[in-house]
């Protein structure tokens, strides 16, 4: 296992997340895909920290975790509020705003 393997794995995870955001319909699943993207970036960061021999990447991964946690709080609150009104978390049902 070289460092490149980790980078490739992270890139694959990021792509899965990005495609998931674009094709999935449930807001919670879309949000989970965004989290997958953030965590694949964490893997990239610690791999590069190892590769460049600096510690910055590992510290940045901690920052990303905290930011992701804050994003979960805000995101779930918003999705929750629209779910309670509509009884559905589908992003296709939310279609009042268009054109």
């Amino acid at each position, binding site marked *: 296992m070289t460092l490149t393997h980790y980078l490739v794995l992270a890139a694959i995870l990021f792509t899965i997340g*990005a495609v998931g955001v674009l094709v999935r319909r449930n807001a919670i699943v879309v949000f989970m895909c965004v989290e997958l993207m953030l965590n694949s970036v964490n893997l*990239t960061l610690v791999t590069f920290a190892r*590769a460049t021999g600096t510690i910055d990447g590992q510290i940045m991964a901690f920052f990303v975790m905290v930011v992701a946690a804050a994003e979960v709080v805000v995101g779930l609150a*918003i999705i929750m509020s629209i779910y309670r009104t509509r009884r559905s978390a589908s992003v296709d049902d939310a279609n009042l705003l268009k054109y």
Partner: protein
Amino acid sequence: MSIEAPDLSLAALLPLLFVFGAACVGVLVEAFGPRESRHPVQVGVALVGTLGGLVTTLLLAGTGEVTAGGALAVDGAAVFLQATIAGLAALSVLMFAERNLDPARSAFVVSAAVPAGSVRDRELLTVQRVQTEVYPLTLFAVGGMMLFVAANDLLVMFVALEVLSLPLYLISGLARRRRLLSQEAAVKYFLLGAFASAFFLYGVALVYGATGSVRLADVRSAVGAGDGEVLLVLGLALLVVGLLFKASVAPFHTWTPDVYQGAPTPVTAFMAACTKVAAFGAILRLLYVAFGPEEWTWRPLVYGVAIVSMVVGAVLGLTQTDLKRMLAYSSVAHAGFLLTGVLGYPGAGDPAGSGLPATMFYLLAYGLTTLGAFAVLTLVRSGDGEATHLSQWAGLAQRSPLTAAVMSLFLLALAGIPLTSGFTGKFAVFRAAIENGAWPLALVALLASAVAAFFYLRVIVLMYFSEPAADGPTVGVPGLPTTIVLAVTAAATLVLGVVPGSVLALADQAAIFVG
């Protein structure tokens, strides 16, 4: 291994400390203040925070230092943009505080937790209680924006991006009327915003991998030395995508019309004015400071999206029947005009040039005008909230000549008619682009302005030369806060158009990036 404490220049950080301090006080007031007195206290705290931020940034004029261990660059451009953000935010807070226009005394929902359309929600609709969580949230967003334009480090830039975005997602879902639209806007803004910031973050990681550092100065020297070319270019592209999303540049603008329409109008005004300034501040710093030597890589990219943004904004703006959506597409077109200014980068040797001051002036002028235009929208109301459909504005000049005149002034400024701030701004950015050989872009920009002028003028024609409908909207009498906002923005729009010299000179002096 020992960890050194970073050097902190408290004087340079004072504006940020002021705004974030006021935000924390706001949270405490929200938790412990008695309900009856909370609204005036929160408005006071928010105004002290934003105006304090404005005054302290003005006192910093002329500084140019890198502080907080290299993470923040408090230089001329940062101070100018921070002052712009703080000033526009103070005006937005005044719009939030307006209590005369809505019959229920506030544009914000009483209890965001109650499901929209439920029995309890209908009861609360007429209750004259006001909720005040929007003020501390706004202050956090303002603090994040002020941090964003001073970030000298990609990590700080990412954290600031989130600090400014997360409160915005929340407050765009807090409208009192048409709550479903507002909640839908919040969901769309949140999902797309989180998606875009993941791209930005991946860009940070790739740049870090290529250079071993996220300091803009280190990235610049690595770029100059030609290290890790592929990773750097990929990283640059991802970073720019994340920032262009925030700046609502086409083709990353799809959230803009929906969120602008759904969010409460004062929040839309705040987003349109302040987020634009913050996002362009970060774009300028990233491209000029970190990727200056890589100019020929990003130039075609920015060139292309500038054209797409101007054309999409102008053409789709023509087809809109809702004024808030029309102003949203106008904001997309203006993002394209601002990118024309960004292309006025004179080359790695001379970081000042004409592109930076022109863009900064444009941001100030556009922010004030668009804030004023949205403030006028809050005045014109029908039964269930604001009357934003174009047909409802027919013959408005007969109902309220003053409102129609003020709106016409803002629309003319957005169209870029001479003797308004919009003309001065457009002239400055087009000149900067032409000086740097981007004359085909300036030509496209002129054509796009001409197309865009059509839909602004259409509203003016509608207001003055149509017969008002019998069941048309009423024009509310604004209280003191909105009156101040309208007076300041209208005066600034005229002054920056007739005698822009001193502000242009100020932007010229401030156009310095350190770091």
